[in-house]
């Protein structure tokens, strides 16, 4: 299944690992922050409508 | 304009104005280098042009927030903004004052410090010339950084983070000219590029700096 990466296996694997981890981290942080922002906005809207 | 320049110079030169601190820092940094890389004269001689350029650059950097922060705090910047002299002109004058009190002394001091670092004989003249061409750009670019960060409390570190990458082209051409000169090669190309960078920054950055300052004064 795995292609024979020969003597550069470490380099290639680490390049892919680093890149994919960074991308995953970026997406995860963005989504987590987005979810928090959404709920914070909902809450703020409720509070304002609740008083008004 | 002249009155403003004289005011700036007087402020910088009086006690507490910070004059001489840049020079002292330049000296101390130069002294530290052999302690970190070893005293071998051939090594020192090789790195001397570059090290002296970095020293000058950092010494400039340290005095940047002085350019605007004090006037910002006591309100004189607002007064200058409403003065008949356009903001761009004011900032050029301030940058000129900064150069006269910080950059120029560094240029004068550089040969003496070159002796400490075993700078090769042909290098002295070219070092001075490259610093002479380049330090005005450092003052003007620094002015831009100061205008961006003037409203930020303790913005000194951020100022450095913003300004140092902008200093890179000046450093590359200036240090290269100094190195070539020290090696006896012809430094004309980097010197011309350096002059171009200085002229360009002095011509264009006052507008960006004035815009940034106006945004901060609002």
């Amino acid at each position, binding site marked *: 299944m795995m292609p024979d990466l020969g*003597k550069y296996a470490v380099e*290639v694997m680490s390049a892919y690992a680093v890149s994919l981890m960074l991308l995953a981290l970026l997406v995860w942080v*963005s989504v987590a922050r987005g979810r928090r922002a959404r709920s914070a906005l909902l809450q703020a809207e409720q*509070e304002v409508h609740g008083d008004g | 304009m002249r009155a403003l320049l004289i005011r700036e110079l007087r402020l910088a030169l009086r006690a507490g104005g910070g004059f001489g601190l840049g020079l002292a820092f330049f000296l101390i940094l130069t002294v530290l280098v052999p302690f970190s890389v070893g005293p071998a004269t051939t090594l020192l001689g090789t790195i001397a042009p570059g090290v002296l350029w970095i020293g000058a650059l950092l010494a400039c950097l340290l005095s940047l927030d002085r350019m605007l922060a004090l006037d910002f705090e006591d309100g004189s910047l607002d007064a200058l903004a409403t003065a008949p002299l356009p903001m761009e002109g004011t900032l050029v004058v301030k940058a000129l004052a900064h150069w006269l009190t910080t950059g120029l002394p560094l240029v004068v001091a550089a040969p003496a410090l070159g002796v400490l670092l075993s700078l090769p004989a042909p290098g002295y003249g070219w070092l001075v010339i490259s610093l002479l061409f380049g330090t005005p750009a450092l003052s003007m670019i620094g002015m831009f950084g100061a205008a*961006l*960060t003037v409203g930020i409390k303790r913005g000194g570190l951020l100022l450095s983070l913003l300004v140092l990458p*902008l200093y*890179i082209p000046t450093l590359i051409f200036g240090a290269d000219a100094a190195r070539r000169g020290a090696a006896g090669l012809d430094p004309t190309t980097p010197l011309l590029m350096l002059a171009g960078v200085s002229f360009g920054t002095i011509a264009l950055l006052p507008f960006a700096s004035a815009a940034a300052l106006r945004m*901060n004064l609002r």
Partner: protein
Amino acid sequence: MSLWEYANPVKFLRLSERVLPVLWAGAGICVVGGLLWGFFATPDDYRQGSTVKIIFLHVPSALMAINAWFMMLVASLIWLVRRHHVSALAARAAAPVGAVMTVIALATGAIWGQPMWGTWWAWDPRLTAFLILFLFYLGYIALWEAIEDPDTAADLTSVLCLVGSVFAVLSRYAVQFWNQGLHQGTSVPVATGERTVSDVFFVPLVICMLGFGLLFLALVLYRTGTEIRLRRTRALLARGARSA
């Protein structure tokens, strides 16, 4: 007086709600598909061995690193001229994405060059230019964080982006000049991405580039939405505090 600033933010959020699922899906398919194809189904280069597979990460990320800054430049100009908040927030949202792309480009570029250069880092002009770009990203992000008033922050970061763009181009040439002088001819073809790529690599590479592009778009739209919501929340709470 309305709760929502009726201009762009509402339309923007509505549009992005519709478009985002497609973008995420497209990005996922292209990135995963392209990388799988490139990793498993392409041959080794006779000179570089299997390290050529890194091209599928390095070129797309390097491309996006530059495109992201360019997008920020355009968004900054739109803010300065037309004062659309969405534009300023989009630039702010794009910066971390561009920064991460730059780091990926740097890491993959360095790793790719290691077998060729023998060290984990060499001051190759291309890589050095990306390193400088990364510093510009850091400064831009830091400035946004440092200024309290959002509109002033938008203004100042826009000016920084403009001036930074000029210096980024200037630095690119300065760095080429700087390294040429020292090492004749060691500009490694590795980091250019302009090397003539044979067909076998070309298609998966294009798919990866498309995938990274879609991912960038998705992330920026999503993150801009987040910024808009945060800004809206602040406004609501401020109004609530005032009337309390």
